[in-house]
């Protein structure tokens, strides 16, 4: 049975179907249904890669899914499901408040599944060239989502996002071309394959200078899309100006999909040159992102920008985990990817509810006492904030501890200490800022009715999944993650 093609086709078809219908309710249902199906297909895929040959290949090797791709497919489908569940109610409120036109809502429900299809294609493509243009497609579909509200600031954010993103992707394309050139046999006249499996098989014979140059280009290029400092300047703008369901997708998975593309090149470079070169670069950029994010979190005044900088920090931590390059830290980084993908959307959904009630994201104007105004939202936000800062019982505590532990055990005590300090800064910043708006007595009189139960199903789903997976990782999932960690760590897995 074909599996990879349906995973790509279902959301794409849902997006096209939404072109034909008028009612926002039907469009939202179509989105939820499509992503529900992709989650089921993702689980089926997870079960298929349990047995040898551990990869699923379709369409004459055009699509290929190994353990790392499967892990990403699961993340993408779960986050998309959550954010489509939330989007229905969110836009119903926006339409009622006349914050958007119905045309724009349609734009959202058409582009979001296409955005998701692009991300699926990134992780399922065998060819590195196809991976590149799929990433460009995700950038192009999400830029219109960022500009959805058509405010001055959202247009500015969209412009920055598309210009910086395209520049980054142009650099990544340079790197991709170099990688392709490095693999060409000087004497052969047959155009050779650009497939991942092919390149990995001949990694030892690739021209090392070319691969080095290629990795630098790709790091800066895909690093821009993944939001690594200092190319991150588009990130807080785009995350804060996009509608909340889109912010959740951007932060929850889009950053990680770009990181996935970077990791593929890291794996290739490691196979060719050893881990020292690309691993060190990832470590430096990851640490830089973490150190830069922490002070911005401490002094932030805008709620969604606060969350965006927190994403920057988590992406940095994932890079550090991979860059430290011991099996333990890579495992921690993968775990962190998953838990962060479940946590951050909840925070953005809650921020969306607060935005719709208070009509501002400035925390000074939101004021204290949100727990009294929006109790359910405040509880979810509080729990997710506790999770995002890395407190037990949530999984992010374990993944952060795993990375730190692995770092110290591998003798990188300086790096680990810096990571610890940056985490501490973010911890203080997020808890301080959020307690200020959630707790206390409400001071501002609101004219908008609070809708206390808005978005609770979506937030409940994500938080529930986070709690369950924090204490219990099903055996198939654990197996796939171990294999994925092995692939990143350069173990010769068949």
């Amino acid at each position, binding site marked *: 049975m074909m599996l990879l093609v349906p995973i790509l086709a279902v959301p794409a078809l849902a997006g096209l179907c939404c072109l034909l219908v008028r009612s926002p309710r039907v469009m939202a249902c179509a989105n939820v249904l499509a992503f529900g199906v992709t989650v089921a297909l993702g689980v089926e895929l997870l079960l298929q890669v349990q047995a040898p040959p551990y990869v699923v290949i379709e369409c004459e090797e055009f699509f290929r899914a190994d353990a790392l791709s499967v892990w990403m497919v699961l993340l993408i489908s779960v986050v998309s499901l959550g954010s489509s569940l939330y989007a229905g109610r969110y836009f119903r409120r926006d339409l009622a408040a006349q914050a958007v036109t119905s045309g724009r809502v349609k734009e959202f429900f058409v582009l979001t599944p296409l955005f998701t299809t692009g991300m699926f294609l990134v992780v399922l493509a065998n*060819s590195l*060239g*196809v991976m*590149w*243009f*799929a990433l*460009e*497609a995700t950038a*192009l579909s999400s*830029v*219109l989502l960022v*500009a959805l509200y*058509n405010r*001055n*600031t959202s*247009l*500015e*954010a*969209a*412009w*920055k996002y*598309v*210009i910086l993103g*395209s*520049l980054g992707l*142009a*650099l990544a*394309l*340079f790197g991709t*071309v*170099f990688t*392709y*050139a490095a693999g*060409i046999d000087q004497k052969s*006249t*047959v*155009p050779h*394959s*650009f497939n991942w499996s092919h390149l990995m098989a001949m990694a030892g014979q690739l*021209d090392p*200078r*070319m691969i080095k*140059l290629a990795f630098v280009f790709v790091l800066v290029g895909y690093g821009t899309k993944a939001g690594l400092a200092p190319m991150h300047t588009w990130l*807080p*703008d785009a995350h*804060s*100006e996009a509608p909340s369901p889109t912010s959740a997708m951007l932060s929850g998975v889009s950053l990680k999909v770009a990181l996935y593309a970077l990791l593929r090149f890291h794996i290739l470079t490691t196979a060719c040159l050893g881990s020292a070169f690309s691993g060190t670069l990832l470590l430096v950029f990851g640490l830089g992102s973490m150190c830069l994010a922490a002070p*911005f979190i401490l*002094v*932030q*005044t805008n709620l969604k*920008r606060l969350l965006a900088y927190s994403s920057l920090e988590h992406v940095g931590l994932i890079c550090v985990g991979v860059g430290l390059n011991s099996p333990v830290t890579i495992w921690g980084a993968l775990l962190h990817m998953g838990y962060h993908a479940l946590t951050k959307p909840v925070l953005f959904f809650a921020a969306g509810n607060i935005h719709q009630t208070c009509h501002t994201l400035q925390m000074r104007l939101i004021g204290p006492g949100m727990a009294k105004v929006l109790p359910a939202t405040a509880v979810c936000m509080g729990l997710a904030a506790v999770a995002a800062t890395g407190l037990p019982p949530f999984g992010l505590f374990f993944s952060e501890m795993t990375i730190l532990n692995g770092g110290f055990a591998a003798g990188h005590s300086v790096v680990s200490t810096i990571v610890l300090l940056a985490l501490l800064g973010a911890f203080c910043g997020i808890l301080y800022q959020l307690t200020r708006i959630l707790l206390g007595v409400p001071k501002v009189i609101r004219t908008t009715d609070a809708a206390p139960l808005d978005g609770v199903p979506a937030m409940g789903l994500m938080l529930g999944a986070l709690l369950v997976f924090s204490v219990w990782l099903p055996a198939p999932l654990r197996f796939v993650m171990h294999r994925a960690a092995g692939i990143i760590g350069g173990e010769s897995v068949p």
Partner: protein
Amino acid sequence: MNPVQSDLASQCITLLAAGMLVIQLLMVVQGMLLTNIRLFALQSLMLAAIAAIIAFFHNNATHVYWVAGLTLVGKVFFLPWLLNRQVRRMQIEQEIAPLLNSSASMLLCGGFTLLGYIVARPFTSLERLGNNTLGVAITLLLTGFFLMFNRRKAITQVLALLTVENGVMLAAVALTTYGMPLVVELGIFFDVMVAVMVLGLLVYRIRETFASMDVSKLSQLKG
């Protein structure tokens, strides 16, 4: 392919690549938007010619004809037409003072060219066709970036992005003989087309909202 033919093809490609670089430098100093668009069309025409030459001289590179054809249709005719229409509709033809004046930008771009050649130096032995085409490609990349930061009109930034894209295509042709697999080339082509349309849409909305195409006015989001 016999050596004489190969030599001829190689010389043509070198000449055309040098032409692309000259046009890029002209764009850096040219202030009129419409002229800039024409220059870009000419640069793309040279890229299409390079692809056509490769397809003609190599027996088993017929898919490169596709690349040449797509470049001709897309980058020489369609995109310049689209941008032209947009500029005329907005009735803004002159770029207001760029950040750096033209003589300083020219000097800087001379530096970029030098840098491009230095970076490409270790790889000249890997070039299959032409001399120093990789150096030209990297220079196109660097000057494209500079063009983007130096100008404030949204349309010029789009053009700068497109010249960077031309640079990548030149690198692909120079380093790999046959270009990349057709499916990748097609994907890149459609992405570029869609990218320009999306950018055009955004420019239109920015113009509606800000009554200007000057992107330096986009400066509210900070910190």
